[in-house]
């Protein structure tokens, strides 16, 4: 909506406001430059009509510092108190500078050199290797070179006679110490004196020895240094290897131990069970077996350590394929039933009774035990599916479950090898008839296979290492020994 439209709406007469608008136009006109001929409007709108540049004049106005005076520099002669004469040299300085003494004269520091009289020399300072004149010469050099012993030794030339740095140091420090002692007024135990004497301590033999070691270090050839470095690296490698070997050995021991403890646990458990069985047998002579009412009770609830014996075996009939114990007479089946019965008894037995049961082996010399010889026990243990970590390791899941899911899963990386091993033993990859004992036995088998595989891996590795080490040894020996004559 333009200005004129607004006027129309408001009903304002146009002529009434026109002078004002005209004035505005007149005022605005000079700001706008005229479009040059031959330039299109679009182009002109791009190049023209740019905002005017504000030209700011610098507002800073340097004020003359009338209050402060400029310092004059003058070419002025100076003498220095550090000089023995009054040589005048010239330099530029500020006129305001104090010309009394030369600034750098304060840097002229010299040491206080010890002096001695002839009498003192004869009394304290006599030495087989040094004459008095030579000693004087030495102290003069010490003063001239400000105790830079390396330079003193370099310049020392007393009638063609020279001394090593250590000789010179020893002499100088000995002079200092002897004069300190001789001139000291109080007793020799004065801590002040001691402190000063320590400052002039010099042991030439030790210094010479130190330098000889340094010389030896410095004189090493490149080959020697390289050999030394190689030995060092080798030593480090051995150290690290030892650590690694120890770790590996421990892993293996753990593996073996686990296997053995497993066996031991089973052995102990079996033994205990046997004794219980005998106890039961003794009891059953008089007491007829009670019905297996307890068989259906979940074995996982049994608090005894032997509870593992019956995990998952809810009174099912044993697998016919299940191998029998070699013991004559009683089959596994019959024995198991006895065990189950015993267990059923145990559940109802008081802790006090169990103690009597535990003590039973001491008096288990009855003829009924004859058939349960130790080797029989061991053989049974080897086949016994009852004690495996299948039962011991985890709790009973709630509710119903498929027994085969309780078999310990094999790591994916190992599964192929385990399958191969199972194949070798003519065992199916999964048990077809998943009864409790079978599952337990299968699980035990799998664990054994895994342990054996692990052990085999270690054995292979060690064998390989032995091979490598042997080859290296042969190589090293071959390098040192003269090269064998070419056979080809």
């Amino acid at each position, binding site marked *: 909506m333009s200005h004129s439209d607004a006027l129309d709406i408001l009903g304002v007469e146009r002529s009434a406001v026109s002078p004002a608008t005209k004035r505005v136009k007149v005022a605005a006109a000079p700001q706008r430059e005229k479009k040059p001929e031959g330039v299109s409007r679009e182009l002109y709108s791009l190049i023209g009509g740019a905002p005017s540049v504000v030209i700011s004049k610098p507002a800073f106005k340097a004020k003359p510092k009338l209050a402060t005076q400029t310092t004059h520099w003058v070419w002025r002669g100076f003498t220095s108190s550090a000089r023995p004469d009054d040589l005048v040299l010239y330099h530029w300085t500020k006129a305001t500078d104090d010309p009394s003494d030369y600034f*750098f004269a304060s840097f002229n520091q010299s040491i206080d050199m010890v002096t001695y009289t002839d009498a003192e020399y004869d009394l304290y300072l006599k030495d087989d290797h040094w004459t008095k004149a030579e000693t004087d010469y030495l102290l003069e050099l010490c003063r001239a070179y400000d105790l830079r012993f390396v330079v003193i030794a370099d310049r020392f030339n007393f009638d063609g006679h020279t001394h090593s740095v250590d000789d010179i140091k020893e002499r100088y420090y000995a002079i200092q110490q002897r004069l300190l002692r001789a001139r000291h007024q109080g007793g020799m135990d004065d801590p002040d004196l001691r402190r000063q004497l320590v400052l002039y301590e010099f042991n030439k033999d030790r210094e010479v020895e130190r330098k000889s070691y340094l010389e030896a270090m410095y004189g090493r050839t490149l080959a020697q240094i390289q050999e030394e470095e190689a030995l060092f690296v080798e030593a480090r490698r051995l150290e690290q290897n030892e650590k690694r070997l120890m770790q590996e050995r421990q892993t293996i021991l753990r593996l073996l131990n686990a296997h053995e403890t497993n066996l031991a646990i089973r052995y102990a458990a079996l033994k205990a069970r046997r004794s219980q069985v005998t106890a039961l047998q003794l009891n059953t002579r008089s007491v007829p077996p009670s019905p297996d009412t307890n068989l259906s009770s979940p074995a996982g609830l049994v608090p005894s350590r032997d509870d593992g014996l019956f995990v998952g075996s809810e009174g099912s009939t044993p697998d016919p394929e299940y191998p029998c114990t070699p013991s004559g007479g009683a089959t596994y089946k019959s024995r198991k039933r006895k065990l189950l019965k015993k267990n059923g008894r145990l559940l109802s037995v008081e802790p006090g009774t169990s103690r009597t049961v535990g003590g039973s082996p001491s008096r288990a010399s009855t003829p009924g035990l004859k058939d349960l010889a130790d080797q029989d026990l061991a053989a049974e243990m080897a086949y016994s599916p009852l004690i495996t970590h299948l039962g011991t390791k985890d709790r009973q899941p709630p509710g119903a479950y498929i027994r085969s899911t309780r078999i310990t899963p094999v790591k994916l990386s190992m599964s192929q090898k385990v399958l191969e091993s199972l194949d070798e033993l003519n065992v199916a990859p999964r048990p077809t008839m998943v009864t409790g004992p079978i599952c337990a036995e299968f699980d035990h088998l799998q664990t054994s296979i895994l342990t054996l595989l692990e052990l085999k891996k270690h054995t292979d590795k060690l064998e390989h290492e032995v091979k490598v080490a042997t080859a290296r040894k042969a190589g090293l020996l071959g390098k040192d020994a003269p090269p064998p004559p070419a056979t080809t």
Partner: protein
Amino acid sequence: MVTYCGDEVASLVLDVGGSWTRVGYSGDDAPKCVVPTYVGCLDSTGDETNAKTIRDQDQDVDMTDATKQSEEVPEDSSAAAKPSKPKRYIGDTEISAVRPGMTLKSPLQDKIVQDWDLFEDVWSYCLHNRLRVNPKENPLFITEASWNVPAAREKLIELAFEKFESPAFYICKDAVLAAFAAGKSNALVLDCGGSTTSAVPVYDGYALKKGQLYQNIAGDFVSDQILAQIRRDYNLEVRSRYQVLKKNPVDVGQPANAVLRDFPSGKFTPSYHHYMQMQVIQEYKESVCQISESTYNENYLAARPQKPFEFPDGFNLQVGIERFRVPEVLFQPNQFITDKSKPVRQNGQVMDVSGMTPGPAVEGATTQTPSTSFNMWGVPQMIHNSINSCDIDLRPHLLTNVVLTGGSTLFPGFADRVNFELQSLAAGQRIKIHAPGNSIERKYGTWIGGSILSSLGSFHQLWISRQEYQESGAAIVNKKCQ
């Protein structure tokens, strides 16, 4: 002034080296002028007419000579008074000018003054003609070789006080100054210049006398080897610039096709001709020569790109392995010496090398075993021997402060090679080479050190004043300038 400990007293620093003399004001970062340390001597027996004729005959030569005219005037008047005194010409343009019968002489040998007359002329030229100062007004700081003898030092101080009437004087060893220029007070200074290569241990601002080694296998020696090598390989004598009037382009390796200046034979002395040849070889060295960065291996180095070089008469070459082989004489002098006619001096003693085993064979040059009786030092051996002669406690400090100075260390690969060789010589030690990348700093290291030292505020107590000299005599220099 306090912050940087400097205080300038407008002293003059004069460094007379084996082949170049540098002079300037203390506190400057480079010398004001650099003059060859050679003096052209012309017997006043009548060669002047010859010189005139040549000047008339060739405008170009006259131009070269023109600058001399004004400076010659005072000498002419003195010559008139003492007709027997030979004319002396000093300065780059002067000694290079075509002047029949002029012999070029160096006042120094092994950086020790041999000819005091010429030496004085060099000083006079530098101070009066180049710096144009009045030596009576400014203290004079000069450098000397580390192995300078006390007698020569006494003569130097006499010269400064008696002839030039300096108000104060100081003399310092060049190795110390080169170490100062590198900002070190402990250093092993390897100075490989034109005339001498030296290795000097510096401890706390003092040059140690026992470890200093010097040998004349340096820049000029290498130049001589190059001349001999070109003579041997191309059966050709290098023509220098003054002999050639006009050159025409020729193919690589073809004989030169140049118009030569027609000089009567025997007009120019061998020393002048040799000097002019050296100028050409100097250019050759700068543009072509290189040092192998690691062990010299001909098979490997032959694969490096060749470099072209054109001599003043137009003869040009593609320089291959020779550009490595000849400078190798600095590092393995026993194996790589080509021209055995040049005497080798070691710590001032002349060695006879003429009976040595033949020079470098094309193959297996590195496997040659040096004859036991001639054992010239390569640069790394010099450094190592010098360090080994110092106290064991000092050696690590020196090895970590090896300062390279002098123009001949500017061969590309020089510093790398020194580093490489030292690492195998001083195995297991930390080695650090200080070699400024700036060629001015490398060439004028000694002068720069002098400039720094003589502008220190705490230095001014060390000047030997005129008064001290008069009281104690010349021997004071051996007491005060250690």
